[in-house]
């Protein structure tokens, strides 16, 4: 199985959607690639991914995350790395936002749209978050 994901949003809920599917797929022996673009870059930004905003009006879910023992985003991100999930940061968005590769977590690649398309062209599952 091959899974291609586009992460285009940068909130905490978005992080869980992306990394839950990605780690579950990788643990099921799938080849997984995520393309981070626009606000999605927050999810792998060294500082930003540790303190992602919750959608306005949903702050009360904070407690629910604790109660259900949901791992923090940064743990899921490092787990994704350990499981071999390929993470590609979008060069074009990085240029717009004046971001460099060293602003991001270790082990990511930087690439353009065709880098992702080449990975995704024979994927069995393609998702956009």
């Amino acid at each position, binding site marked *: 199985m091959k899974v291609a994901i586009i992460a285009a949003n940068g909130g905490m809920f978005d992080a869980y959607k992306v990394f839950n599917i990605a*780690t*579950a797929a990788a*643990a*099921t022996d799938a080849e997984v690639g995520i393309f981070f673009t626009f606000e999605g870059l927050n999810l792998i930004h060294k500082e930003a991914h540790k303190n992602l905003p919750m959608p306005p009006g949903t702050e009360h879910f904070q407690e629910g995350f604790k109660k259900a023992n949901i791992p923090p985003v940064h743990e899921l991100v490092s787990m994704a790395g350990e*499981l071999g999930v390929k993470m590609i940061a979008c060069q074009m968005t990085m240029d717009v936002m004046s971001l460099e590769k060293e602003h991001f977590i270790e082990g990511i690649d930087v690439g353009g749209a065709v880098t992702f398309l080449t990975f995704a062209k024979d994927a069995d599952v393609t998702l956009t978050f």
Partner: protein
Amino acid sequence: MEITVNKVLDAKGLACPMPIVKTKKEMTTLEPGQVMEIQATDKGSTADIKAWAENTGHQYLGTVEEGSVLKHYLRKASAEEEKPETTHPDIMNLDDLLMKIKGNEKISVLDVREPAEYAFGHIPGSINIPLGELEQRFEELNNAENLHIICRSGNRSDLAAQKLTAKGFKNVKNVVPGMKEWAGPVDKSH
């Protein structure tokens, strides 16, 4: 029900996808054929573990619920198991075995799968000695007549049939393909 396993993974209190991620990691430490028990409280884990096993080729044996804890049982698959290479010459198919069981002749059925596999479904009255213990326990079979050996797919039972024939047992039959296609009566020990 007490089920013998080679490894117990504690995934209690963990939310999706952690039970799956932990299972994946822990599975790499098992030898092919060994059985793992995964303890989880995530209610979605039953469907997930089953689907995970289907995708990765491992064998899902079943789930036991104990209070709020779900105990899932998985057996690690080996590549060669899927394509049995029968060398014990005396084989019997499942329909013939079913007829024999229903008939008057006295026969013995030896199930050589792991105790956890046996627990989730076996032929009523069958004896369970896992293949790995057969060398030490074959004396238990000395009074058995007409031994019919079964496993899941016919591979382990073939090895067992060869071993027992070498020990001097007469009239040993390997039942093929095995429990994975058995449509006759089944007992569960839980």
